[in-house]
């Protein structure tokens, strides 16, 4: 064999990528793309490659950032960070990306040594985190499990993404369905090890979103038409016996050893396997099993035989369904057909029925008592729509799981960001000399960096506004208020403002609104750290607390990395 040595190119080592102007330009390009997708009124992006073929319509961070092809190493770094966050928390990806870009861009424009910026950023982040985790934080609220209101608000914020193209009514409907499905997955009996059950999402295209529903139990898709030949109504109601096979029942002979086989003429091991299969089949019939499900393939002869004996057979279920199936039916998966099946392996369900959604038909397994397994049937008109809906429902489930661990939520709609900016601005004005010495920077540097930090938070909040409206912030609560575009200059406050963006506060006389991002106004000095009252309005925009906390930290740390970079070494092969 000939071997070639291809001369490799020497690495290129440059700081050209990190030139402030170049970097700021690419950062603002990325920010521009991401910002316009942000929030419930964000715009969609159509991603294609010039060759043709598949196109993606999305506004979700994972799909959007995952599909962008970028060459700039710093942007690659930011995208990798955001995607890592999303893969773990499934939400707030766009927020992370925007905040990170804002921070890095603003910091790059400052005339402060990078190491100082990094330190001050870290210090400010700690102020934010300490505040958010403290009891007197005014922008987080306790989740009330006795009432579905706050939970529903939380789910609605996750569901309400532009890509799903849902009307308000549809979004409400889907949110309550997701919440209901999530409640199904909480086991009714709490043992020593608490583990949540499974919520299986079944996507159906071609139906309206309001046709979605939640079913207790599992749906198995039926591909062939034979199942209907078995009259399900004849089955004994209340106790339908099920056998669950995890082993392939195709009749292949397998042996893990690496020796050789010598088979006498006239004897075929495959025939023997089939005989074993049929023997198992006979036992199944004798044991009055009504339904046989198999993770892998079932031999057609065995299938035929069982069907003749009025046993329903479903194969090729895949590994994902096995665990919930076992949980639902109480069966044990059977991993060998060479030996008689012990009777305690069988499981049972209360009832079986065939349900139809759009063009698909399913076998619905209804459990005996309440089991923490349910199916969420999601309908939408298009395939892309269904896929997006599935993604948001999955992230809603992830958010709900996090809420169970930490029953807190932060205010959405940009109010948390503006509130934090106000708080940080206030705190940075009274920074002590000790702290400054600790950070190794001058007071003026601290002031400049803190200002840029607050500006980044505020502009992240204001990027929720897409339709030319103006963003305001009040001095009492530090919340974001949005004013419709083209509002006349001399309008009375009661006409311009109604509710803050998160919906917690109503407009009042003494709120003293200022334009968001206006750092000249000396506000926030007498900010009330007032905890929100216990009774909340119905429509509140809430974000998951754990997700937001992580997103904030990831954004600042990634921005710090970008600021701290000295040069880039690129492999050019």
């Amino acid at each position, binding site marked *: 064999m000939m071997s070639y*040595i291809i001369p*490799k*190119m*020497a*690495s290129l*080592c*440059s*700081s*050209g990528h990190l*030139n402030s102007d170049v970097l700021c330009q690419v950062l603002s390009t990325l920010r521009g793309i991401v910002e316009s997708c942000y929030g419930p009124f964000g715009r969609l992006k159509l991603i294609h490659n010039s060759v043709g073929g598949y196109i993606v319509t999305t506004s979700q961070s994972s799909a959007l950032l995952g599909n962008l092809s970028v060459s700039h*190493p*710093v942007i*690659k*770094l930011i995208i*990798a*960070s955001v995607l*890592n966050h999303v*893969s*773990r*928390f499934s939400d707030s990806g766009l927020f992370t990306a925007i905040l990170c870009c804002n921070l890095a861009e603003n910091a*790059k424009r400052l*005339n402060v040594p*990078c*190491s100082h910026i*990094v*330190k001050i950023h870290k210090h400010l982040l700690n102020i934010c985190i300490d505040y958010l985790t403290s009891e007197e934080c005014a922008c987080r609220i306790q989740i009330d499990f006795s009432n579905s209101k706050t939970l529903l608000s939380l789910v609605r914020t996750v569901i309400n993404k532009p890509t799903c193209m849902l009307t308000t009514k549809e979004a409400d409907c889907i949110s309550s369905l997701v919440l209901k499905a999530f409640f199904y997955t909480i086991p009714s009996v709490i043992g020593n090890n608490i583990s949540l059950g499974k919520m299986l999402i079944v996507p159906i295209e071609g139906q309206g979103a309001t046709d979605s529903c939640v079913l207790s139990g599992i749906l198995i898709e039926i591909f062939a038409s034979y199942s209907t030949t078995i009259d399900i109504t004849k089955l004994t109601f209340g106790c339908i016996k099920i056998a669950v096979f*995890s082993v392939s029942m195709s009749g292949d002979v397998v*042996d*893990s*050893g*690496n*020796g*050789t*086989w*010598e088979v*006498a003429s006239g*004897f075929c*091991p495959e*025939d*023997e396997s089939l005989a074993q299969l049929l023997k198992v089949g006979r036992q199944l019939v004798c044991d009055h099993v009504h339904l046989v499900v198999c993770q892998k393939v079932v031999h057609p002869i065995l299938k035929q035989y069982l069907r003749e004996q009025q046993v329903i057979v479903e194969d090729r279920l895949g590994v994902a369904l096995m665990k919930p199936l076992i949980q639902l039916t109480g069966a*044990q*998966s*059977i*991993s*060998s057909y*060479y*030996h008689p099946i012990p009777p305690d392996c069988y499981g049972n369900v209360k009832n079986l029925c065939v349900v139809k959604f759009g063009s698909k038909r399913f076998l619905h397994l209804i459990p005996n008592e309440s089991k923490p397994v349910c199916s969420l049937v999601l309908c939408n008109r298009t395939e892309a729509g269904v896929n997006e809906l599935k993604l948001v429902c999955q992230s809603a489930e992830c958010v709900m799981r996090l809420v169970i661990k930490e029953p807190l939520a932060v205010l959405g709609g940009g109010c948390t960001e503006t509130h934090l900016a106000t708080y940080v601005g206030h705190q940075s004005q009274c920074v002590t000399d000790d702290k400054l010495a600790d950070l190794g920077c001058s007071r003026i540097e601290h002031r400049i960096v803190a200002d840029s930090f607050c500006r980044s938070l505020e502009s992240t909040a204001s990027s929720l506004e897409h339709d030319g409206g103006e963003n305001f912030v009040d001095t009492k609560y530090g919340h974001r208020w949005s004013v419709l575009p083209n509002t006349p200059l001399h309008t009375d406050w009661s006409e311009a403002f109604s509710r803050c963006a998160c919906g917690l506060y109503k407009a009042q006389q003494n709120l003293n609104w200022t334009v968001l991002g206006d750092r000249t106004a000396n506000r926030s000095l007498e900010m009330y750290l007032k905890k929100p009252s216990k009774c909340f309005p119905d429509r509140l925009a809430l974000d998951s607390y754990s997700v937001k906390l*992580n997103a904030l*930290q*990831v954004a600042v*740390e990634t921005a710090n*990395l970008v600021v*701290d*970079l*000295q*040069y*880039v*070494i690129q*492999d050019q*092969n």
Partner: protein
Amino acid sequence: MEREFPAWRLIRIRVTLAERVMEIEKLVQTAESLENIMVRCFGPHGRQVLLVRDTGDILITKDGCRILESLLLEHPAARLMVQCVSAHCSLAGDGAKSFILLLAAMLRASRAEIGDGLPAHHGAQRLWLARGLAKLVQEVLEPVLARHLAPRCGSALCLSSGHPLLPREQAAQVLAAYFGGKVGPSHTPFLTQLACDFLQRLGDGEMEPALNLAANCFPGLHITVPGLPVGSSRVLEGLLLSRGFSLLCGQGETRVLVVDGSLLPPLTEAGYTLQLESAAGLAEARDWARARAEEALARLRALGVGLLLSGSRQPACVLELARRQGLSVVDCLPDEDLCLVRRLTGVGPLSQVADARPADTVPAGFARPAPLGTHEQVLVGFLGCCGLRAHSLAVCAPALGLAMQHRDAIHGAFKLLRFLLPHPGHHDRESKKLWTGDLEKGSERQGTGDLERENGKQGTGNLAKGGMRQETGNLERGSERQETGDLERESERQETEDLKIGSEIRGTRDFGQECEKQGMWEPGKAEDLTEGMLGTGGKGGKHHQPVDQLARREPWELSECELPAGRVLPPGGTFEFLMHHYLQREADSQQQPDVRAACRIVADALLNVPRHLHPRADRGRDFLQAHTNFAANLREQGVPAVVDGPLEVVAAKQCLLVSVIRCLRLLLAIDRVIAVRGKLGNKLPTGSEVAE
């Protein structure tokens, strides 16, 4: 404040001739271009570098070794230098940037030294210089360090009940200086705390027992978790296995057994033939195999085993049987994990489960899925032995590249701390042997296993000739033979293992006694000791080499003086200034001209390190200021004060100096570069690395 500097390419000289003379000028150029890259991230003021691979992977690093290794260099001398740096770093875990700075400065000084003569004499001059450098390392360096430098150092070790102990504060001070240069100031306090916590918890309150394990087996003791803030990194209790549960029944306190192969014996094995004539025969063979598996599991249950760890995959049938017995199973574990389990608990994998003894099982506090991580992993709370308690480190960062940087930095930190303990090189080699020995033995065992099986076949040959190989009796007998064989080998292995551990323990105990003796002996004789032998700083941590101890040393270790363990100096160029001073003094008093030249070269080169410690803008001024202050201090007080700040390990610095000088000798000794077409084998002599 962004400073512009043009993109530059590393030395691009196409080697068109088949051979060319390796001129010292070229070497200096090469080293300087590497130096140019290194200085930008050198010291606490240096910043991060973003590496982009051809695959598009991103790596963020300040680690010199990592940067050098990922550069694709055209000039062979540059590649040789990088090779030397990696060899040094794999041992010491730190010092790549200083390495390049020192090397570049030494090459410059050598060029000046050689440049006087005629070009024709250069080769001879270079060799002469290389000889001088070798003599410097052999004859001058150790005595200078031990006689002049050691008295000016503080000690990080303190003695408690005869054992040298590394207190947490001292370790933290050393690590603070290390992380400052390795990852930058923003994460330094956090990583320092994390590394100390990990060592303390791994060593059950003390750092030393854990240090060797952590330095050698760190890959098995951590996970990197992208997507979380750095602050989420933490120490997890229990050993982290790299696979998830295949079967989970109960997470509470239990006993653990490690097995080698599948519990369900395969119907055939290599070298065997299964002769089938009827369906009944096949069924019988299957029944036999299943009965073996059932037997094994019943045995495990009887021993109280609740968790089975397995190197090979366990078939679904075994998992089903295990579920009936209430056993949790983790299978497909890589060899590294099994070795680590053995090091932590002293129990190796078993190949025949049916006659497992209670001694083969180990207790574990818990076994549960790991809380972090992208794929499923298991945490097993082994109670451990030899003063170790299983703990793992979860290293989190927003991007994977950063997490990897922190992981490498922490690994390097353990290697560095090891230099504080007595005889780091010696320990290192021994433990390395132990660690690789495990692996080797693993494969060796398989090899002999096959051989024995071969023998087994011959032994039972007449039976096999009989034809009915599927008869259970035969199979059983066959496996019995293997069993005893395995058992024998097992015990043999354990014995050697024990011996090794024993010798290690004995070694440290010797040292402990040695120290104790000194401890008792010192107060009375302190005045009698010559000034040169007097330690400073450490409270009771002064242990010198008594004369009778020296006499007992191995001949190859015999030198007139050795640097005592645990010596530390404040960072910021103290070591370099001091060594510069002493080596210059040495150069003046030296009789041999070649050693004198070598001393001058090294002394001058040492100053290159502190020169680059200061920020770029006012580098020259700050450096001169620092040097003047230092000289003044040295004149006035004689001894620089050891402050309570960060600390540097002198032994690591010494190791670095020796490595650089070795690299320089290598470079000086090369006279020609030969370019060939075709692939070069990877049969490079590893002597230079092993000779460490």
